[in-house]
């Protein structure tokens, strides 16, 4: 049989499914069901990773699940933000500082940082979809001079579903980026008591603000329906080229290595070829995701 040389073995493991163990060094409760875990590598140096990549995180006895790496590479350690939805996430939520979790990765492709340089960036996050954007956002802020403009629109269904609240406050205080926070309107047009931001879905905000497509790149992640409507508005109403819109796709994954066949969309393995795609690529997929 033919056996090519491997070019992407994860470091420090015997085989590709053997995870490393990370130590939970900190926990931040983002919402009642969402927690950010700060993780430290104790068994060796942290692998290099890039914004947009993901990993397989888990707990022995509960299993593995896929999470995007939610902190920028220039921070120490690694952070992930986990929403409790199933067996693994429930088990993770029962952890305390000092506990260990398993990690394989980093996997997948990443946001093309070099291509983004010199552009105006508009981040659009929805709910827990802010997590995949967070690393890139902080990287851009760290290198603010690389970019002409930096804006963030962040929306959630309810105030208690906003993640990274303390960072949002920090962003709002900065003068080198624009921040728009929005909650889904409960009764259209009616303000939500005590809420400092806007009460609107994202597309109307875009229609109102009309960020021009010129030299701009939109990076968005959120619920599939939000991505769809945001892209529609940008392309049809504001004249964006689908190639100007970047997103990360959520597909069920298991191996993260392009083997298990779960994340196939056409001949694309989301775990290897993605999860970062331009909307142009997304439109070319067989429409089943």
């Amino acid at each position, binding site marked *: *049989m*033919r*056996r*090519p040389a*491997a*070019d*992407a*073995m994860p470091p420090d493991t*015997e*085989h*590709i*499914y*053997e*995870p490393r*163990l990370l130590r939970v060094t900190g926990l931040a409760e983002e919402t009642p069901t969402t927690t950010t875990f700060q993780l430290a590598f104790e068994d060796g140096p942290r692998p290099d990773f890039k914004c947009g990549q993901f990993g397989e995180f*888990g*707990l*022995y*006895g*509960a*299993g*593995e699940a896929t999470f995007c790496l939610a902190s920028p590479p220039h921070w120490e350690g690694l952070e992930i933000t986990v929403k409790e*939805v*199933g067996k693994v996430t429930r088990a993770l939520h029962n952890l305390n500082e000092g506990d*260990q979790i398993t990690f394989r990765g980093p996997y997948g492709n990443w946001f093309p940082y070099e291509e983004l340089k010199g552009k105006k960036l508009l981040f659009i996050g929805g709910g827990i979809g802010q997590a995949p954007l967070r690393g890139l956002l902080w990287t851009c802020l760290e290198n603010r001079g690389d970019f002409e403009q930096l804006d963030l629109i962040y929306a959630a269904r309810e105030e208690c579903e906003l993640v990274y609240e303390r960072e949002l406050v920090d962003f709002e205080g900065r003068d080198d980026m624009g921040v728009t926070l929005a909650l889904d309107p409960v009764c259209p047009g009616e303000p939500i008591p005590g809420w400092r931001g806007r009460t609107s879905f994202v597309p109307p905000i875009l229609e109102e603000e009309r960020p021009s497509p010129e030299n701009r790149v939109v990076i968005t992640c959120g619920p*599939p329906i939000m991505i769809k409507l945001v892209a529609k508005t940008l392309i049809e109403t504001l004249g964006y080229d689908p190639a100007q819109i970047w997103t990360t796709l*959520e*597909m*069920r994954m*298991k*191996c993260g*290595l*392009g*083997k*298990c*066949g*779960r994340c*196939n969309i*056409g*001949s694309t393995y989301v775990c*290897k070829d993605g999860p970062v795609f331009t909307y142009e690529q997304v439109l070319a997929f*067989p429409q*089943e*995701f």
Partner: protein
Amino acid sequence: MDAEYYKLSAENAAGLFERARADYDVVAKTRDANGNLVYGRPVSFEDVAFVDEQPPMSAKAFALPQNETLVRYERGGGEIRAETPEAPARDLLLFGVNVCDAAAFDIIDRVFQWDYLDDPYLARRERTTQLALACTALQRDCFCNRISYAEDGVDAVAYPREGHYLVKIQTDNGRRLVERYRNLFAEADGDPETEITSFLEKAGTAKREPLLETAQSGLAGAFEHADWEILASTCIGCGICTYTCPTCHCFDIQDEGGYVGGRRLRTWDHCTGRTFTAMPAHQPRDRQYKRYRQRLLHKFWYYPERFGPVLCTGCGRCITHCPVKINIKELVEYFGGLSDAPPGGRRHAP
């Protein structure tokens, strides 16, 4: 390497089996307690079944077991100890397996070697040698004659002749087998290639146009074809086609055990099942025909687009054992534009 040809007398075939059992873990066709044909470990040559018929389960499990422990773990004293299982201790000889089963390994090697090397699979795979046995007749549901890749990459193929086997060696691995038991093999005489060609013609396993590989471009335009719904809706979503398939290789990774100890294991999984892509509150393939479509297109469009060969050796198990007898060959022909009507007549979506 260039193919080499040898003669193996029927007598020596028995000798080969006996001697190989000392050096290899020998797997061959045999019968289980119920009298059903299986790939098993017969202890004597008499127990080896030399028939064209395929066992329901292909031979893929010998490289990709249905359950495979990836990591064992233990907790204690505030620490987690994890260890990976030992690689298999013995070489494996697939003795007299069907060509379509042997051929599958080379096809799925490609994904297991793609970029990341799948060590657990490859550890088994690398210790495997195939000595396949060519069929004497095409069976009812077989269509290996429609797939060009169906013998490539098989280490050695034995063609049954009068009183002996003509053995074609296709890989270094195959050559090592012959060298190991060189005195059992004789040089082939005559023109073995011609002999094989006429054997295949007679058996009905010679290639016949149009090959199913040519359906790929047609399939690429057929994703939205309205007839998927009506033709694939009888699919009940079981795992028979994928589990019996020599090339289907999708899997799941799960933990079994508890806090104190257990294992992380990989188990076969199947894209035709309704949980395969189900996420909390989101199911991209929300109807059965979409899941069937995925299987077919993955085999005949996505996989060849990415890795070259179609993900199929034409063994026909997925037709034979399908509870509703969905015929992948005919559907590939229909959706791939090679035939006008699906099996059993046109059934237009309303």
